[in-house]
């Protein structure tokens, strides 16, 4: 697997990004640049602005001040088909089965082949033949399906907000390993979480946020052996 050097062109460039909610400043002037092909883990307390930052980059919110470029584009709309977003909530219809959900969301990206959905479900370790409705899924299954929905269209950039919340440790480790594999295919992944330990051996860089700012960025030297072991564990 060819490792992608940190010097590859930036996927996201943030310029003095500010976001107010009324009188509250959720994002307070973030300027940063993120290279492609890496897995970033965004850490921070509640209210540090992690989710807000992700929502802005995903195009769900307008920044109050500042600007950003995403995959070289000024508006998210232009590159929407190259970005995958997984929200804090599952973003799935409870009344539909897993495949029905994925079939619908694939259609939004112009993909009308069931193979995409099946592939995505298998990738996250779910059975595509499962006829149960999502409302009856366990939390872990739901998060997996949610991940499958976000990566359905094979995006170059994935923005994942708390993918491991309410997920048992084993499932979470599985999902982290999946993310590592996806990154190895050259994709860029941002994971917002407060369970940094789960990303051990997978993350390339830890980004710490506090009070609406990026306070530190730390390169993680991945232990190749540990990583490989983690990858072959399944």
């Amino acid at each position, binding site marked *: 697997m060819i490792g992608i050097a940190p010097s590859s062109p930036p996927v996201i460039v943030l310029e003095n990004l500010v976001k107010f909610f009324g009188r509250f400043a959720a994002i307070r002037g973030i300027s940063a640049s993120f290279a492609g092909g890496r897995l970033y883990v965004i850490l921070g307390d509640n209210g540090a602005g992690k989710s807000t930052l992700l929502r802005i980059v995903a195009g769900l919110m307008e920044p109050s001040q500042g600007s950003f470029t995403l995959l070289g584009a000024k508006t998210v709309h232009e590159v929407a088909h190259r970005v995958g977003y997984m929200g804090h909530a599952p973003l799935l219809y409870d009344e539909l089965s897993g495949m029905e959900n994925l079939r619908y969301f694939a259609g939004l990206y112009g993909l009308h082949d069931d193979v995409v959905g099946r592939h995505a479900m298998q990738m996250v370790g779910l059975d595509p033949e499962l006829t149960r*409705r999502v409302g009856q899924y366990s939390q872990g299954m739901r998060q997996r399906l949610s991940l499958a929905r976000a990566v359905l269209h094979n995006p170059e950039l994935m923005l994942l907000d708390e993918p491991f919340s309410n997920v048992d440790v084993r499932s979470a480790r599985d999902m982290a390993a999946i993310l590592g594999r996806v990154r190895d295919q050259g994709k860029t992944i941002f994971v917002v979480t407060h369970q940094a330990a789960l990303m051990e051996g997978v993350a390339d860089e830890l980004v710490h946020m506090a009070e609406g700012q990026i306070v530190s960025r730390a390169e993680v030297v991945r232990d190749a052996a540990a990583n490989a072991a983690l990858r072959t564990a399944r």
Partner: protein
Amino acid sequence: MSTLGVTGASLVKDLRMEWRSKDAINSMLFFSLLVVVIFSFAFNPTAEESRRIAGGLIWVAFLFAAVVALNQTWARELRNQVLDAYRVSPAPPNALFLAKTVGNFLFVVVLEILMAPLFVVFYELRSVGPVWQLLVVALLGTWALVVNGTFFAGLSIRTRNREIMLPLLLFPITIPALLAMVDATTSVLTGEASPDFWIKLLAVYDIVFTALCLLLFESVLNAE
């Protein structure tokens, strides 16, 4: 992304979900049934009188029932914040709007078909004028209710007090359409006047507001 394709897919998805839960149609049916019964007690009309007030009664019942369904359809998109998944996708916003509108249109038409026999039974209704005109009025009128209703329901979900907001916004704007529906229906039922003007007015209303909805829905959907 073809608008029509996404519209079709969204519509099929909505219909499937409604078929499984039957939330909207059941609550609409029960609601309009209640209105019929309560009106009957409140006014205790004779057959002749009921022919005169039926136009108003029918459409008021459907208007209130439609509000129930309209809130339902968007509530479905808010659960689990599924709407975000649509908003991050490259699919055109108007496709979502059209799917919701057509879906609601079908729900209300089904309601009307189911309720029609009840009106005949309870109010001894019999049309003096040609019945096909009633069909035209029903289709145009239902679209008028539903197109603005879907838009304002989509607008209300972005506010606090969203269930209350929908009727507050929808009813004032709907007044001319309601007037047209009621008067056209009464004209046909009593056979005393021609509903032509009202049908034309409804057509104009439908065209104007469908165009406005399609023009403005993207802004409303993307208002954060």
